[in-house]
């Protein structure tokens, strides 16, 4: 059994490790099985196609099983014909790669992600048409297999100005190229997020079986329509010319909590508990707003790994159609059980409250029950003014109390605070100067390098204090928290220490507004 399944008081054990978790992500046992799971076996294929269509097309409830099976058999025949075509047109393919090689925009991208099968079949490329990159995928496949011949594996390649991280798992080869400050470990964490995203769509066992049957299978057909989920995971950082705080949760392997007064949050939790406790086969209830966690209520002995939660956030963030109507779809939480599907009822609470509720059940026929549970929870939250409280917070451009606090420390530009006991992260809104892309890139680079040095596997650090041209930066890891802070460059050391003290005291006082200590059970 997985460590994540330990009851709450011990979540510390799994969470403390979570920052370094990506370092040994490889070590995940492949045969973990939750008792509650149904094995994705005989009808797994159909399930996943269902899930898939629903997720990708986001059409409601039912799907035509006959249609999906016929698509599958059609796919079979095209794959064989595609193969013969390939062998004829290798020259053309190489010319295509030449196209990209001379395409300075493509070459100069700050980040590339390539996914291919062990047989060298293109699956995904963040930039450019992966078909046109077939020659490059071929080279990657050859390099990986040459090194594998010595019972070894490529981890990374380093060159002037660019580095590559490799990951080879379960018939998939994932490669990240980066021109940013991101370390190999951070790139690998990103690759593992993408890998888990794929597992979440297909499950591990389905993936293995597919490639066992046909080494040359074109996985793009199974992933069609879900590229946006992969893209959104990868477009988290500034490489996509976007100023987005999502990168911080990814870098720290954590999630954000929706700030709420303690009383409101406990009202919400008890509303969920009272309506869910008697519902059979309900495993998790997750309430999310604005990409932040409002509440997570779980069955005893079960908990969700932060990386699985990030996949849930990603799914909600990417799927507009959840706003229109409730959905019922299969979902695999790979850190929990990479081989089975659960079923999620996903819906926004009301038309005026953009909080999204997921009810995750073992029973694939529980759609109607979940819908009524959701209605009852919503009613109760409405009556107890909780929806209003959520809306009030959502209407603010940023959390008012945190903003106040920041104003009282003018030289503190930004910080990340992560309690060791939970994989949750607190940080303030981006302020001047980090609102422009180029400055934000610098901030991102600062955090990448701080986190990399603090969590360096072979020589970790407890503290970094650095005076740079444009800012003063501090990283501090204690027994209870991790703090990373960025100050104006003119600040002196005594002020830094004073502010850090003040900030820590304030967070400790307001802890329950910004963090969830223990996830309640039904």
């Amino acid at each position, binding site marked *: 059994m997985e460590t994540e399944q330990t009851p709450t008081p011990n979540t510390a054990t799994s969470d403390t490790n979570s920052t370094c978790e990506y370092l040994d992500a490889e070590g995940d046992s492949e045969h973990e099985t939750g008792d509650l799971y149904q094995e994705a076996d005989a009808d797994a294929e159909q399930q996943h196609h269902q899930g898939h269509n629903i997720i990708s097309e986001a059409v409601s409830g039912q799907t035509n099983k006959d249609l999906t099976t016929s698509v599958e058999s059609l796919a079979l025949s095209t794959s064989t014909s595609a193969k013969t075509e390939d062998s004829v047109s290798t020259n053309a393919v190489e010319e295509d*790669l030449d196209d*990209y*090689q001379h395409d300075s925009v493509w*070459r100069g991208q700050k980040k*590339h992600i390539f996914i291919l099968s062990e047989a060298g079949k293109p699956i995904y490329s963040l930039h450019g048409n992966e078909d046109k990159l077939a020659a*490059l995928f071929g*080279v*990657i496949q*050859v*390099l990986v297999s*040459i*090194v594998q011949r*010595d019972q*070894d*594996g*490529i*981890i*990374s*390649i*380093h*060159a*002037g*100005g*660019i580095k*590559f991280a490799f990951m080879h798992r379960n018939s998939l080869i994932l490669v990240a*190229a980066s021109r940013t400050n991101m370390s*190999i470990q951070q790139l690998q964490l990103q690759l593992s997020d993408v890998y888990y995203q794929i597992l979440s769509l297909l499950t591990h066992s389905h993936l293995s079986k597919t490639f066992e049957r046909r080494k040359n299978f074109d996985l793009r057909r199974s992933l069609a329509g879900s590229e946006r989920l992969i893209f959104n995971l990868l477009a988290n950082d500034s490489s996509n010319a976007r100023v987005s705080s999502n990168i911080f949760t990814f870098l720290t392997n954590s999630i954000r909590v929706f700030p709420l007064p303690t009383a409101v949050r406990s009202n919400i939790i008890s509303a969920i508990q009272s309506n869910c406790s008697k519902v059979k086969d309900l495993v998790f209830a997750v309430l999310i707003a604005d990409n932040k966690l409002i509440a997570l209520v779980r069955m005893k002995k079960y908990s969700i790994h932060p990386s699985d939660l990030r996949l849930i956030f990603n799914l909600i963030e990417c799927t507009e159609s959840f706003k229109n109507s409730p959905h019922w779809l299969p979902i695999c939480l790979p850190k929990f059980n990479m081989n089975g599907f659960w079923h999620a009822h996903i819906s926004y609470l009301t038309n005026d409250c953009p909080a999204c509720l997921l009810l995750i059940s073992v029973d694939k026929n529980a759609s109607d029950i979940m819908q009524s549970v959701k209605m009852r929870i919503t009613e109760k939250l409405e009556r107890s003014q909780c929806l209003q409280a959520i809306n009030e917070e959502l209407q603010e451009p940023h959390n008012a109390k945190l903003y106040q606090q920041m104003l009282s420390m003018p030289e503190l530009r930004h910080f990340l605070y992560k309690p060791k006991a939970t994989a949750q992260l607190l940080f303030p809104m981006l302020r001047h100067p980090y609102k422009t892309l180029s400055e934000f890139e610098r901030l991102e680079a600062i955090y990448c390098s701080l986190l990399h*040095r603090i969590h*360096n*596997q*072979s*020589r*970790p*650090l*407890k*503290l*970094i*204090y*650095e*005076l*740079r*041209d444009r800012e003063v930066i501090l990283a501090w890891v204690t027994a209870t928290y991790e703090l990373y802070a960025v100050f104006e460059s003119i600040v002196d*050391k*005594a002020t830094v*220490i004073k502010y850090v003290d003040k900030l820590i005291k304030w967070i400790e006082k307001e802890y329950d507004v910004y963090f969830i200590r223990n996830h309640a059970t039904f």
Partner: protein
Amino acid sequence: MSQVLQRVEITLRSFYVFNSSLSQKEGEERKKVLYYYPTEVVEYTKINDVGLSEGIIKFIGTFTNEDDCKALHTQKTTQLFYQPEPGFWLVLVLNVPKELKLKDRIEVAEYRGGEVSDRIYRAVLRQCYQMYRFQHGPMQARLTANLAEENQQREQQREKLSLELHQFYDKYLLSFRDLASCDIMDMLHSIQYLALEKRIFLRAHNFCKLCGDTFAGIRDCIMLYNQEQIICGGKLNASDLYSLHAYIQAVPKGADPGEDGAFVEKVTPPRVFLDLDNCIAPFYLLIYRALNITLCLFVDVAPQPEFYEELHAYMGPQLISLARDIADEVSKRTAANLGESGSNDASSTSPKYLFINEQSLKHHTNIFRHGKNNQKSIPRNVMSIIADLANPIEENCTQTTPATEELQVKATNDFWVVKRRCNWRQYYVILCKSKATLLDVTQEAKRIFEQELTDDVFFDK
């Protein structure tokens, strides 16, 4: 949970030199492999390994024009790449440290590639080339035959170069010192200078300059103390000086010159290649010893016997007297230092410092002051942290303005490293204080900076 049964440190797996342009036809792949260690490996493996390196270089070429592949990391190895001359690649393949552990009664090997610092071993690789070039000159200079026509001559030249590489590297790799203990000093290629009082330093300096002025054939003159510490470095660039320093240490002491100075080798003085005024040219190296002083003279043409005699007559008496005065000064300093810092200086908890001048590559440190055997006084992780923090000194320093930085880190074993960098100089202070605060450490480091930076050795004279 798990117990370490055995730890295997970094070891050399292979080292090779290749040039892809040397094999134009299929079936002639072996021709591009100019050197491969271990020599006894079957050709098939050599060609495959070179093939993988070529593949990696080509792969990178898809994304960048810079042709600047630096390293490949696999679970079991770290492979460093270096292209010192267009087309010529040197690759150093290391087995990463390995720990055999007992997990649930099963023996598992854990590879600890993260402990290998690329920067340090890339510098080691760079020195592999520099040492070769110092003794044999650039590789490309050996392959002068025209590509199209003189096929046979070309092949002869290739074979000759390959032979030369074999003769050199078979010996050089044997002398590879314990790879696991390579550290920041190996990375920066810096050299400790002898601390001398200003007046006596000027005497030594003037002596070197006068030698060059008096004898037209002498291009440069370097003076060392005990074959180890540099007294004056002449015009040599930092990298050649480092190679010379390494070379001199390997030269046998020769017969004791007694009360007189003497040349170590007069019949066939070694030829070395120096990069003077951006042009790599051969020179004859004459080594002269007088007491503790070793004098290295570089001359353009092979000297005649009369030249040696003239030089000996000129230098002998002056150098002997200088050597005596320097020896006096050194013993005085050592006594003073011992009295001042007491005997606990070598313990791991006393403050340590390291100052490096990035331009001259002089360093000044108390880390190795009590002999190299004591260097374990600083834990490995701290040495690696310094290597992470250090600004690498690459062959082509492209930065125009030196950055100013100040940085403090605390390792998990309570060692603090304080770094300052300004004006092309890097300063490190290493303290072991678990209870100290950020401000305490700042104070303490400041005190050490002020105390040690007055040392005139570190400033340009």
